[in-house]
């Protein structure tokens, strides 16, 4: 085997042709208010978990919306489900329910893959 000294890097581009956007609709089915999210970031600004971890609910929600599931599972574990974000959301998104249902959907996916 030849030693090349490097390997061909894989692109990290978000490819919406390959992304699974259907998974998100499962969340929306359970939590219709999720669709109203503006991505304003008020949730992550007030987040208690974000005070001592790098948890960013706005980003996690967005990633799921765009079909990027990788590592989201462990991200969600940082949330304590305190629900403070829900009290502040200017569009009345039931953020707590979004997380709760994301866990279920992602767990199902995870087990299916085993």
């Amino acid at each position, binding site marked *: 085997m030849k030693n090349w000294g490097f390997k061909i890097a894989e692109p990290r581009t*978000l490819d*919406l*042709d390959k992304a699974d956007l259907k998974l998100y609709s499962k969340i929306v089915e359970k939590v219709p208010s999720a669709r109203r999210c503006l991505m304003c970031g008020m949730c992550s600004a007030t987040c208690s978990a974000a005070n001592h971890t790098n948890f960013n609910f706005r980003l996690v929600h*967005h990633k799921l*919306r765009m079909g*990027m599931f990788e590592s989201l599972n462990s991200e969600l574990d940082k949330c304590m489900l305190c629900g403070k974000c829900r009290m502040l959301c200017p*569009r009345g998104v039931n953020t707590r329910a979004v997380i709760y249902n994301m866990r279920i959907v992602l767990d199902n996916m995870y087990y299916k893959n085993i």
Partner: protein
Amino acid sequence: MENKKSVLIIGAGPAGISAAKSLADDNVNVTVLEKEHSFGGNINNWAKLFPNFKDAAEVKSQLVQNFENNKNIKILYNKKVTELKKHNQKWIANTSDGEVFESNATILSTGFKVFDAKYKEELGYGIYPNVITSVEFERMYKDGKIHTQQGSVPKRIAFLNCVGSRDEKVGNHYCSRICCIAAVKQAIEFKELYPESEAFIFYMDIRMAGQFYEELYRKSQEKHGVVYIRGRISETSSTIDKKVQIKAEDTLAAMPLRMTVDMLVLMVGVEASETTTILSKQNNIDGPYGFAKSIDIHTADNYSNENGLFLAGSCKRPLTLTESIADGKSAAFSVIDYLKQTK
């Protein structure tokens, strides 16, 4: 007819016609010169209007009532004004077919034109199939079917905001104001026709600065599942099966994004119409970007620096239809004031 004052209005769009009606109601003789063969200006580019989906044709027919059978209003079509100048307290307008019109006061209501998307070559308009402008979308919608060049209904459509606006590459630093809400409206119309298809809107800021705009935006998300992507499209290209490949950044995830859509709609911005620029320059009332400049945007917005030359509507800046109609009326009152003072 004893010494009745005459006013010339250049442009029979919403502002011009509203101004004409108000002036005529005050017993002023009004001549309206329109370069096209019909009135309405840019209303003719719309099928339905934001934010209430009112039929554009309906607004047009309401405008007709403003001047139809009104003996004080004379509308002349296919009259393109090429020169406007002041001479002995009178305003003289020359048209391209050699006619001369004289008046005591003139209202410039020469409106706007939409940005020519061919200038943004990276977006592929006029180069690749299935890249269309918002104006073309309206036309298709009016005909009842949104279809690709191949004739099929798009399974995926994307709308791109700020085409020709907020872009120094084409010399336009300003926001055109109407495109954001137009994109929301068109995405909803598309989803209502084809609920199974997907619609994406690429934006930098969603500027919903009008009554019921924000509500419409919310509805587009909640009811129709329109997906909003915060990022400006950098480049399009055509795939082998005539889809449009898009490159943008999903700035909310800080990730480069690539996708193909069956159709890309460019939300073309508002620019000063050619006549606006030419006539403003002739009279030294031209402002930035070739629009006409009023004396003061707050307190004297219908007055130009030239006595007796008034401004109405989107010859000054991008305005909505609502604003243009109101501005036409406002201009009429300024003219009436002026006519009273001059004798």
